[in-house]
């Protein structure tokens, strides 16, 4: 959610209970949450809406305990991903209900380390995308993350493949980015 400017102040206001601040946070962040949750292939539109709602309910309830207002976006998206995964796992009955994917505790959310400052990392990710071999994965990543207009389902239709194929490509690319960022965190934080 790169444009975090201004969000922190709304987070502070919301943590004080200002209703308008919750509305503003919801307005600003819902599109990204919806895009993230909508990328989970097996969730139907109703389930996506339920996950979005659950994400914001959990986040807003815990907001007063959020230690780092500047980490709100990442924290919110972590919750969204966990809620989506939990919904999927319940749907596939691979987990029992009590084995809920735990959300990050708001009291322990760390301040973003220097190594993860967005401007720098965005350049790294753009470079990694540029270095991808020409093909369907690169096309998919470009359509979803760079152009950012089409949903996973729309990309699937455009490319003539199933939505699950699109989400698999995106997840594969995402895991590479996660590895690279973890490496940078490890190097930046403790070297």
């Amino acid at each position, binding site marked *: 959610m790169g444009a975090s400017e201004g969000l922190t102040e709304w987070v502070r206001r919301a943590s004080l209970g200002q209703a308008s601040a919750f509305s503003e946070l919801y*307005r600003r962040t819902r599109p990204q949450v919806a895009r993230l949750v909508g990328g989970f292939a097996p969730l139907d*539109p109703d389930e996506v*809406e339920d996950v979005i*709602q659950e994400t914001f309910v959990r986040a807003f309830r815990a907001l007063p305990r959020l230690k780092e207002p500047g980490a709100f976006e990442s924290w*919110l998206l972590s919750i969204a991903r966990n809620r989506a995964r939990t919904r999927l796992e319940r749907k596939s009955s691979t987990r029992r209900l009590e084995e809920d994917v735990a959300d990050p505790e708001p009291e322990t959310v760390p301040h973003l380390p220097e190594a993860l400052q967005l401007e720098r990392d965005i350049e790294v990710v753009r470079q990694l995308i540029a270095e991808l071999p020409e093909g369907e994965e690169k096309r998919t990543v470009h359509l979803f993350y760079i152009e*950012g207009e089409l949903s996973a389902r729309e990309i699937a239709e455009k490319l003539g493949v199933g939505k699950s194929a699109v989400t698999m490509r995106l997840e594969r690319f995402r895991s590479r*980015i996660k590895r690279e960022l*973890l*490496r940078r965190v490890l190097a930046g934080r403790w070297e």
Partner: protein
Amino acid sequence: MRHLDDGALRALTHQDAATVKYFAEHLAHPCDTCEAFLAAHDGPGLLDGQVDSLLLGLAPRASQEAPLDEVGLARVRRAMQPQRPGIRRWGLVAGSIAACLLAVVLLPRMRAAGSGDSTAPWTGQKGGAARIALELSVAARDDGGALRRLDPDSVVTDADVLLLRYHATEAGTALLFEQRAGEPPELLGEFPLVAGTHDLQGPQGLAGVSLAGESGLVTLWLVGSAGGPPPAEAVRELLEGENPTWEHTALAVIRFDVRVRNGQNRP
């Protein structure tokens, strides 16, 4: 060669120096095993959220100007009211029910308050939006799937789901509110209106109002306007009688009352 696993993740979380050093070097190169592990496991810390924030931040953002999804926010607010026993889920019922509803429900006479007698448009602009008139019919779907048409003030059970069908004289937009006795109206959803007789449905299918957990008088308000939706907060004030000018708007306001009986007390 060591790869990421639960133990390594714990060690990284606790900043074990040797583990950090090893994986800072190991992860500098592509590793299918570690990437597969990272794809299937959370963390460490907020890394997943940071990754998603980064990736979703690559595209041009319009969220600063994004309109507020009032319906979604209303759902969140309702879900955040912890002690309310009668909190209902605003369900979108499968589109297949629409076919059943078509076969069962005929458009009845309805109460159409303030639907077309006004002179000033909602926005207050001279010569503004066209007036719209609405009629509404309501059917109850019981837990066995059977449908029955309801008259105003009908007695229903909390296992019923209310399905709505409207007749509009113009295309426009409607807001659907639900109001419990002694409480302010709550926005349930925003729906496009098409001239003619249609099931009330949003982009995801037919709209249904579950009565689970409800009891006593429940009022549905369907408020239509030609063109875009009226401001939800202003409409709420109108319905609560806080705005005395509502009869002079171009809104069509339909009220439908039901009396919900707890299913456990069914005869």
